[in-house]
């Protein structure tokens, strides 16, 4: 507990208090997923049983987690791969595109700056679900309907706004002296951005990354109409394949949902440290 030394006069009692409150908060956020998890290890009949119990009554159906990968309803390993590829690529594309724009608009004043920021936020205001037909026609035109590239472009374009605005606000918070010092040292704008600013705005980048990744990960409406081959469809669409006309295999829907949370949590686990990194970086003058 080395950090206790750094921290303000946190007494032992106060730390324990925080742990208790933290536990309660964690529980509140986890409960719905606990329900989801318990559903995923029940039988289909038990999920809709009027005499339901909290825990599986007819034994824990762990095989739901193995069976779901090889149902004829949807090729889940492929759906998983598609989702990962689309989300990762879309996130990288967003960073690549949004970062220079965010930096430049935060640092420099130029004609068209506000117009640009307005254009960017406009894309966020459009709900992709009502644009699906247009998107489908467009992707047919580009001859990339039913490909990963189509969904990478769409996800990147519709998540650009948050990343740009978020990083803009972080770049804007970096003291200008930092840039000036770098430029006096003869650094170009790119160098100033990557070597000097970037380390200072990690929290903003991390937030933008998570936001973009998660939206791409869970995108449904456009994928549904643009990805027609079962193997190309992302998990969000694959889930619906277990929904029948008069009966639904909820155990699989829940199990797939649980599994699809995991990669995001892993991503988060690895980049969350960067949020803390911002603490020290921010205090460096």
């Amino acid at each position, binding site marked *: 507990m080395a950090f206790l030394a750094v921290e303000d006069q946190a007494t032992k009692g106060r730390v324990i208090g925080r742990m208790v409150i933290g536990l309660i908060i964690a529980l509140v956020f986890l409960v719905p997923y606990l329900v989801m998890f318990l559903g995923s290890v029940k039988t*289909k*009949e038990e999920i*809709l*049983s*009027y*005499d339901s119990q909290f825990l599986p009554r007819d034994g824990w159906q762990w095989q739901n987690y193995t069976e779901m*990968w*090889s*149902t*004829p*309803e*949807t*090729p*889940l*390993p*492929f759906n998983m*791969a*598609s989702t*990962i*590829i689309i989300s*990762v*690529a879309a996130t*990288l594309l967003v960073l690549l595109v949004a970062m220079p724009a965010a930096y430049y608009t935060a640092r420099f004043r130029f004609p068209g700056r506000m117009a640009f920021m307005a254009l960017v936020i406009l894309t966020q205001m459009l709900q992709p679900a009502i644009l*699906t*037909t247009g998107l*489908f*026609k467009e992707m*047919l035109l580009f001859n990339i*309907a039913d490909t990963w590239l189509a969904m990478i472009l769409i996800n990147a374009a519709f998540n650009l706004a948050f990343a740009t605005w978020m990083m803009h606000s972080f770049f804007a918070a970096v003291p200008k002296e930092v840039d000036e010092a770098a430029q006096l040292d003869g650094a170009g704008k790119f160098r100033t951005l990557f070597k000097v600013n970037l380390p200072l705005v990690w929290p903003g980048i991390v937030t933008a990354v998570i936001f973009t990744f998660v939206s791409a990960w869970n995108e449904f409406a456009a994928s*549904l*109409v643009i990805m*027609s*081959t*079962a*193997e*190309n469809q992302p998990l969000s669409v694959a889930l*619906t*394949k*277990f*929904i*029948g*006309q*008069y*009966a*639904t*295999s909820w*155990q*699989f829907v829940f199990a797939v949902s649980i599994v699809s949370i995991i990669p995001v949590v892993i991503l988060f686990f690895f980049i969350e440290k960067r949020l803390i990194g911002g603490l020290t970086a921010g205090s460096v003058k």
Partner: protein
Amino acid sequence: MMKKTWRTSALAIGAIDAMALSSCSFSGSGGSGSSSAAPGGSSSSGAAGGEAVSLTMLVPTYSDTKTSVDGVGTKARWEKVVADFQAKNPNVKITLQVESWDNLETVLKTKIQGNQAPDIYNGGAISGFVADDLLAKAEEITSPETLSNFQDSFNTNEKVGGTQYGLPLLASARALFYNKALLKEAGVEVPKTWDELLTAAKAVKEKTGNPGYGMPLGSEEAQAEAMIWSLGAGGGFGNESEITVDTPQNLEAFDEMKKFIDAGVTQSNPGSTQRTPMMSGFVQGKMGFVYALPPTVAQIKKENPSLEYGIAQPATKDGSAVTLGVADRLASFSKDQAKKDGVKKFMDYFFSDEVYVPFIKGESFLPTTKTGATAMSSDETLKPFLELLPSAKFYPTTNPAWAATDGALKSLTGQIEKSPSADVLKQIQAKADAAS
């Protein structure tokens, strides 16, 4: 550090990319014959040269592996049909897409707007597509033998302006399911009229504490419940040329439903009860009466085989026999002759007894073909429904305004729980009028 992460993820992308590419040649060719095939790993030899024709096929999910009576599920069932067909007709390649009912029309309409409408489509009402001249005629996509093998009533039901477009795929009839144990406990007989049903449902509610009658007026299938009751009063929702919702007969029927609600013999919140979860209540023995259809028999067999239940004709105002029949259809959006010919080959193959009968049995529906009906006449499960079929009335699916009427019935009927029936009927009629 960051650089390394990026490189490794790029490598990972490359690897998966290669994996997907290698499977690309298979994708869409439908699954292999064995249902244990790994996803995507089907084994079609592809188009074998010549004048090959590629068809697209869009169908909804009726059941999945876990919910179908034979453990196959709609997708695997179609994949087998397609694979067997392609084995016999190497020149015709069919790309199958299966979506849930919820998403089917969204996907279809997007495809139509993108000029990618499927060559083979399985769905509900098609009159709107006929109005836009999008469909191939039935005679272009089947041989005369196949066409004349459909039962006449089903063929008639597919005709718009005297021309047939859809091919009746499967049918169902609604019947009154009752829980024998609860009826015995309540000491009531199987009802034939509305009054008897109300009395019986009241007795079940009072003596057993369970809802007497399950009335699902939520958006899932309110149109079916509404239609059964309307038919019971001699009403209905119109015909090919006219949608009639706001009629005295329908008002009588809606008022009768209200009577059931007000008497407290239904489950709570009937206006917002969805059919599927409610039905699972009946299957679990928690309800006196419900209207259900053949797949429900399969569901009971799978989920609660010990349930003692019976099947009777729907209760009507005067006890006469009438029921709601529903037929889903196959249709084709093909424009050019080569594709129509390919579709014709497929339809003739599919509707042959060897292919068609196992398909219908697996999905627990009623057959629409004459020879199919003969082949399945010995099926004990389907018997009560086959007997009801002659008295079945269908939705006016051939009316172009039906789709909007159907939508209005789904989203507005439930309001009778709180509003006067007359107002609700008027609202639905207005929606129908706006669409015609």
